[in-house]
């Protein structure tokens, strides 16, 4: 019973991530919501399923899925965030501090991006 509640909590966190993705105004903000909430949510669901099932075969698949989620989800969020920043910059309506623009880090350092700055 507790295990099912854990799984339900994980699903609610994923729903929270979805609400965040729908409600926030800015791509980068939506990405914050998606990464943090859905990673913890899916971890809870996978851990709950591992506790509920009793086959060793399943444990390994679930452990592998959980480990891979934990590794890949932040990286893909970072890649999208970086790509969006390089393509568009952040929304200066929102009263921001932007030290990356000020630092002069070369945006197109991989040589194959066709667009110029911003």
């Amino acid at each position, binding site marked *: 019973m507790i295990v099912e509640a854990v799984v*339900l909590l994980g699903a609610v966190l994923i729903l929270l991530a979805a609400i965040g993705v729908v409600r926030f105004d800015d791509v980068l903000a939506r990405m914050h919501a998606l990464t943090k909430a859905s990673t913890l949510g899916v971890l809870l669901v*996978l851990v709950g399923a591992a506790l509920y099932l009793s086959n060793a075969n*399943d444990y390994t698949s679930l452990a592998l899925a959980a480990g*891979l989620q934990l590794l*890949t989800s932040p990286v893909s969020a970072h890649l*999208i965030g*970086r790509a*969006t920043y390089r393509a568009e910059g952040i929304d200066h309506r929102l009263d921001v501090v932007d030290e990356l623009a000020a630092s002069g880090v070369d945006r197109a350092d991989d040589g194959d991006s066709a667009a110029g700055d911003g």
Partner: protein
Amino acid sequence: MIAATFLVLLAAGVGFGYRLARGPSLADRVLAVDGLLITGVAAIAADAMRTGRGAFLPVAVVITLVGFVSTAIVARYIEGRGA
């Protein structure tokens, strides 16, 4: 309670689907697809709990990996092309 889990995941899927349809930029749509993939992984795990058989669990691993690679590819594209 597992039925409630499925309902919640369905609502999450609808939310991500809305963003997929509406999201003004390509990055929004990629986020929505990533969210849908995570919802799918959770649904597979919940279904394994419902039936008691873990036959589809390796699918969750494959979805995670393929989703990561495709997100990375689209991120590269956005960087070059603009969102």
